[in-house]
């Protein structure tokens, strides 16, 4: 058990990325009740956007200098794609049966994957992402690397900014109103189209930050990275209570911790050797999800917009 602090930290680092991506699912769902299955690919394009910025910068630029620009580049890519998707794929389907935008999202996700695969130079195999050369640091028995540190700092900063934005700003309040009742909000003078686009944009922005975290932690981005990450983040959003932005972050952390602890310790339980280990981490993550949904169908924190059936 002497590895426990390190395993908890591993789960925290992993979960922070899930949480950041989960925000995008949860905000869009909270406002338009759409599961944007293309969100994983929006995350992926953010990674490639950031990589592109790094590649066009003069060779040898310090990563500390490049990183803010990469974040901006990744965010611009993700946000533009998300806004484009919202405007041209989802908005025309807004009054269609629920299934139609869902299928459009799946189609869009395939299209984005293949577009990057075919159009981005050498994206047929993973592309190397630049690495921060700092650390590692030892905190007691916990070993922390630069990529992990970036992730674990970025996540709460993003969360605080988002919370302030939603609660304090005029647009944030309009978002809450739209989430509660889009028709009434519109009657009150809220431009719902603009609000919905904002939700997509913020989700994409966070996905891009998550993609940079991902690139820094794993040292690579690839065109298919959005699928698994997106699935996990979606799970995290449901786990935390889809529609609830704090729930998304909490769900991400819980999921990351569950995976990391399952990998580390389940095979130590007598009779469970066959069911432990790294390849079972996903299984245990989903077992956890099912358990939570059985006993608390609204997710850990519940959806905030409770008055909308």
């Amino acid at each position: 058990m002497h590895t426990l602090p390190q395993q908890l930290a591993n789960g925290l680092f992993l979960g922070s990325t899930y949480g950041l991506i989960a925000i995008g699912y949860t905000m869009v769902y909270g406002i338009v009740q759409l599961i944007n299955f293309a969100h994983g690919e929006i995350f992926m394009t953010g990674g490639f956007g950031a990589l592109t910025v790094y590649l066009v910068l003069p060779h040898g630029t310090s990563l500390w200098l490049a990183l803010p620009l990469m974040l901006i580049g990744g965010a611009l890519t993700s946000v533009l794609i998300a806004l484009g998707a919202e405007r041209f794929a989802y908005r025309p389907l807004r009054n269609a049966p629920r299934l139609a935008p869902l299928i459009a999202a799946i189609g869009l996700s395939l299209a984005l994957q293949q577009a990057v695969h075919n159009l981005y130079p050498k994206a047929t195999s993973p592309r190397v992402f630049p690495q921060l050369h700092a650390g590692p640091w030892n905190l007691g028995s916990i070993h922390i690397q630069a990529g992990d540190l970036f992730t674990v700092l970025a996540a709460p900063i993003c969360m605080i900014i988002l919370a302030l934005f939603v609660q304090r700003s005029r647009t944030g309040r309009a978002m809450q109103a739209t989430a509660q009742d889009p028709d009434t909000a519109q009657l009150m003078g809220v431009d719902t189209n603009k609000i919905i686009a904002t939700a997509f944009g913020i989700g994409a922005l966070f996905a891009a930050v998550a993609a940079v975290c991902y690139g820094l932690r794993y040292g690579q981005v690839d065109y298919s990275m959005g699928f698994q990450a997106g699935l996990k983040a979606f799970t995290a959003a449901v786990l935390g209570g889809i529609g609830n932005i704090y729930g998304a972050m909490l769900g991400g952390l819980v999921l990351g911790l569950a995976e990391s602890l399952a990998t580390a310790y389940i095979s130590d339980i007598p009779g469970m050797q066959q069911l432990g280990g790294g390849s079972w981490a996903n299984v245990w993550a989903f077992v956890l999800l099912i358990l939570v949904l059985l006993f608390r169908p609204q997710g850990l924190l519940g959806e905030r917009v409770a008055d909308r059936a």
Partner: protein
Amino acid sequence: MRHRSLLVLSIALTGALTLTACGSRGGSSGGSSNASSGVTVTIGVDAPLSGQNSATGLGIEYGVKIAVDDANANHLVPGVTFAIKALDDQAQPATGQQNATALVADSSVLGVVGPLNSGVAQSMQQVFATANLVEISPSNTNPQLTQGPNWASGQKVRGYKTYFRTATTDALQGAFAAQYASGIGKKKAFVVDDKQTYGAGLAGIFKDSFQKDGGSIAGTDHVNTGDKDFSALVTKVKSSGADLLYYGGQYDEASLLTKQLKAAGDNIPLMGGDGIYSTTYISTAGQGSEGDYATAVGVPVDTLATAKDFIAKYKAANYPGDYGDYGGYSYDAATAIIKSVGTVLAANGNKLPSDARSKVVDAVQNVDFNGIAGHVSFDQYGDTTNKQLTVYQVTGGKWVSVKTGTYTG
């Protein structure tokens, strides 16, 4: 409104499907048909040309392409122009099987080079056997493919007479690796595999041989292909006190595993099979790969005088894949098919017989020539008779061969 929605939806879906189709077709355009000659014979290629393992997969495609270009330029088989038809299996057994069916359906295909992955080969063998179409893998190393499921207990049975390979098997590779590891003083190994036919098989053989050689196993674990985060596993390995991490699988996961292991402060080498022997492994893992070991079949291609011309052509064409792994073996596999087509033609008055495919199978069984990566001939199971293996180590950001030989039990 409803109609408009449906329109948008169908456009989105059509777009997605079109793009998907483009993706799977990627790289198949290679070929060199020359309409002026008489007959065109197609050499099929099946390998992962995109996604997972694609760097190695592209190495196979271009190895075959160079062989075909050479055969055409040198008129190796007079009156026949060779072309290639490369299909992308994305390292998926199901896709490989579809590709096998597609290659069988193309009557100009008289032989196939591929696939890369043993698991994919398993799903293709039957299709080729039914059609009597010869298949030569440059890289499959799972013993079961040629010697049947009970090979370990000595009951070797050849399942498919159309299946051959120019790579030697994991039974030798895993044992060779274990012998080398013990030889450099490794005592305690942590063994991880990716649960695939190739990876799990290799890891199992390594584990048994390493224990036989006096080593102990600090722990075992499995990962999923496509996983990126191994932090929990790495923590486990670190606390197990192992002095070697053996990985059965491909470089996609291995490179991340070794990188995360070294980043976590555990400075033990990762050792793997030919699945990790790739320059992509080093470029992805960066500094983390320094000191890692890989075994690979045959002798290092760059040290062979016979392969100089091949390597020069490969580099000049600026192909994106790695020739290092199997490019040379793919070249030899394609050449074996080309020569066999020549034999069949010569025996039939320079015309292709109606049962050309099955005649080519027989001719391949009897090929005997010096290829660019070593001697090419096959034993009664379809395995290569060239059983040399090499251990490589990452030194200064490059794979450097440290030991070449054959396994001695």
